[in-house]
């Protein structure tokens, strides 16, 4: 294994650790709930991502096996972290924000969280009984 690869892995590990720590520090330090939501997205994306890529490189260079699990976990975390962020934001808005405190959408309808529910939403079209699977 070359010294260059080792330095690259070490750099990825160090930067991952720093970003994970800064994300958690943001979670503790920032003043209110909506701003705190920004900390973990950082920890999730770059912190965990670079640690996983470092692990993948390490197993490739050290042990000679190309391990795809890390790539799979990285993609999984990258896909799921916006979804958890969105859900936590919506739950928080539902619990502690009044409708009047938020800017209104330009077209005159409501935001989904305060709306009439998915069944009555203008973009969801429910026509008759559910179609059977083709």
């Amino acid at each position, binding site marked *: 294994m070359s010294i260059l690869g080792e330095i690259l892995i070490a750099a990825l590990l160090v930067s991952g650790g720093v970003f994970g720590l800064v994300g958690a520090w943001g979670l503790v330090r920032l003043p209110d709930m909506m701003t705190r939501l920004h900390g973990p997205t950082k920890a999730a994306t770059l912190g965990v991502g670079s640690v996983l890529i470092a692990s993948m490189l390490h197993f490739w260079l050290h042990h000679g096996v190309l391990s795809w699990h890390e790539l799979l976990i990285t993609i999984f975390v990258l896909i799921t972290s916006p979804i958890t962020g969105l859900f936590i934001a919506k739950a928080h808005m539902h619990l502690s924000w009044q409708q009047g405190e938020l*800017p209104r959408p*330009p077209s005159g309808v409501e935001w989904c969280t305060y709306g009439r529910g998915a069944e009555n939403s203008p973009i969801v079209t429910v026509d008759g009984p559910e179609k059977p699977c083709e």
Partner: protein
Amino acid sequence: MIRRILPHPLLSLFVALIWMLLVNRFAWGSLLFALALGVIIPIVTASYWPDRARIRNPLAIAGYVVIVLHDIIKANIDVAKIVLFKPSRDLQPAWLVVPLEITTPEAIAVLMGTITLTPGTVSCDLAEDGSALLVHALHCPDPESTIDEMKTRYEARLKEIFL
């Protein structure tokens, strides 16, 4: 006929690929099983997913991924600076309303994911008719230019990718 066996060709391919990555080493038996799963799972879940994501330009996806990764790294460094060095009283959090031109659910979902993944902005809600996004920004002294950047940088490219 082909639609009945393969309701979602892209999903089938994706399921097979994920299974091969989970197995972690190549074997013909695993490939056969992966293809079988790729056929069966979309048929079983077809009723939950009546629409298909129609992609116009598959090559543009690679360019989009590169741009998003670059932005994630850049924005991460910016937000780390804000978290570490900016005192709370100087922070200017803002709600942004981003009007949307894209209409397909898949494109809107990808845009929301991109906005949340780039640190500093979290997409919080969608208008009931899908015409606007509610985005919360950590530190945003100039909301107009931030909205404009999101629209030109991500939405214009998504409009080219999705039909």
